[in-house]
């Protein structure tokens, strides 16, 4: 499933979308086959942030960044085995792509930062 940052949420057409408040944060939640996605949008329904959760997988950047091959990728930080943050400089803006977690609990987060 692709949930591209900077694009309208209604492009997400696979899976059932629910509104959910998790720790006071409003998300649209989509349960896919491999990941559960937590999506934040702006007032116009444009995707600003996505968190993909799985017990055993990290979602690749291409799930959230359309044509990532057109972006410059830079490692911002890495904490061994537990977290990494990458910055993608793309023609349409900067994106932070963060992976985090441990066996059984893995999160991938992508958000527009500029």
């Amino acid at each position, binding site marked *: 499933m692709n949930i591209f940052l900077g694009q309208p949420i209604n492009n997400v057409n696979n899976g059932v979308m629910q509104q959910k408040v*998790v*720790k*006071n*944060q409003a998300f649209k939640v989509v349960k896919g086959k491999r990941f559960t996605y*937590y999506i934040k949008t702006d007032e116009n329904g444009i995707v600003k*942030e996505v*968190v993909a*959760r799985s*017990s*055993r*997988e*990290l979602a690749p950047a291409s799930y959230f960044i359309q044509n990532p091959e057109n972006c410059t990728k830079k490692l*911002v*930080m*890495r*904490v*061994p*085995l*537990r*977290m*990494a*943050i990458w910055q993608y400089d793309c023609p349409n803006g900067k994106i932070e792509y*963060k*992976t*985090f*977690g*441990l*066996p*059984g*609990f*893995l*999160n991938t*987060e992508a*958000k527009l930062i500029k």
Partner: protein
Amino acid sequence: MKKITSKVLLGALLTASSLVGLPHASDALTLDVPAALVPYPGNAIRAAYLMLSMPQDATITSISIVNSGISCYSPPSGFNSLLHPGAPGQYYIDLSQLPSYCPGVAPSAWQSGVDLAINISGTDVSTSNVNADGYALINGFGLKRLPSYFINGGSQPGNVQLVVTAALVPDNNLIHSSYVMLSMPQDATITSISIVNSGISCSSPPSGFNSLLHQTAQGQYYIDLSQLPSYCPGVAPSAWQSGVDLAINISGTDVSTSNVNADAYSYFVFGLKRSPVKVVQGNNSNSSSPGTNSTYIYPGTDYPNEPIITVYIDGQPVQLLADTGASGLIVNSSAVNIPSSDIYSSYSFSQIFGDGSYDTGIMASATVCLNPSITNSCVVMPIGVITSGDAFPTTGESQGDFGLDSSLNIMDIGYNYSSGSSITGFSYPTYLEMQYGINSYTISFYPLSNGYYANVPSTTPIGQISFGVYNGNSNTLIPYAMDYLSGLPDTAGVFPSSSTSFSDNVFFDTGSNYNFLSTYVFQTEIPNFSQSADENACANYGWPYGIVNGGFVISYSLQNYGTSFTTEPSLSFCEAYTNFTLMEDNTLDSGYEMLGYEDFGLSEMLRHTFTWVLANSGPNQGLVQYIGINP
């Protein structure tokens, strides 16, 4: 407060002891008082009494000092003349009478304790109707109970083990003095001293453990426990004051529970405390004694706060990450030599970690030991053999991951995709429980030399992991059970503040070298928290993005537990580029979106000792149910 007099106490002892029933019957029995303190001119024992309840026609036939060869003379009217009747069948003996009837005992021995054996006979005498207890008043110290036991027949000679429960030991703390009084055959030898459940074996003095003994009379000794800290490295200073369980193994041709007795007491700021001593048959040093099943943790060289242990896989020593954030065991294929017959090449596994590193490999069966010479540290278990990936580079120190969370977030589940079957590699402790009933392990760390940080060489232990059988009170533990969505064990945590609180699941993860806490935690705990102002002061000095500035106090509470810590490091520390391998409470802001858990890494765990307690029956047998945290 009402002042308690010795007569009131004696009355209380008379009442209490008459309620005690003992199971075995005999026409004669021996009452043993292992460490009787007795007034003697010039010593510090002001008074000492032994309360005795027995049938009115019973007779004390002899009194002797165990192991010394000393038999006390009978008073002219017999030993019963030493009895002072309190009520029908209720007596006490003023022990100050004994020295005149028991020649040959050194005066100092009456003060340090002698092992009295009192033989009682009579037609109705049995352990069901004879009871005893005693106490002594020590000048300037207070009251010490003098426990007593019945001896019914001998046991096979050879070895015994003394277990001194909650021994308080002087070590520049509030404990002024502490002694174990010991009676044993003269040719007996103390073969080892260890700390129960800790994995700590005390090193022997150059002349052997018997050199710790001070002899007061033939077969009568005491050990000044203040000698122990220098021989028992690895015990946290605070533990000597809060109490440690000592195991003292004694061997000798005539040694048995019939002729080895002991008692212990300590004197501290609140007065006198007795430490009861249990004497058990057999020498447990090479059996399933948990104290021997342990290994040191070393600082890794791959990055700071990397806990490394050496385990033996099919006899091959391998350095692995000691990881309470994962289950199972995975190891680089180049680090082990597993026979092809034990390789299950049709069962493959793959694993990805939070930083995006990964490994893939195949399953195998291997013998995994903490110490190959200790049988019950070895288990045969499925492991994952890494054949490719970058999570554990072969050039690094850590050659794999030794999962220690004992749950179901397993790294190595091998699938045979053609048959649809699988092989699951649980954590080593899970197999230890299933094969030996060893259901607990303790992970402890030594204090850091510079307070909150240290630069420890890779060859110097930073702590240890010890396996044993948990026999404490589970009501005081912290529930730590598996989350069925992730398989990860966790517990409910609360981060309080004066105005509000934030609740989240919490887990403890030695495999994480930082604390990863969500932004919600900092917003709750730090007044007017601002990511721009309160983070990344050290980011320009090689520290990761999102590092929380030093100096903030973070409090959290779990069921049965609460603590707080101060975030590190300070900007001045970062500016100084100080070398370190360990640091407490370096903490990262994991953001708003990292839903579901707060991850306390090694940086918080370094401050505490953790006890993992596994289920020993039921569907979750071998899986963690509780943890204990101390302090």
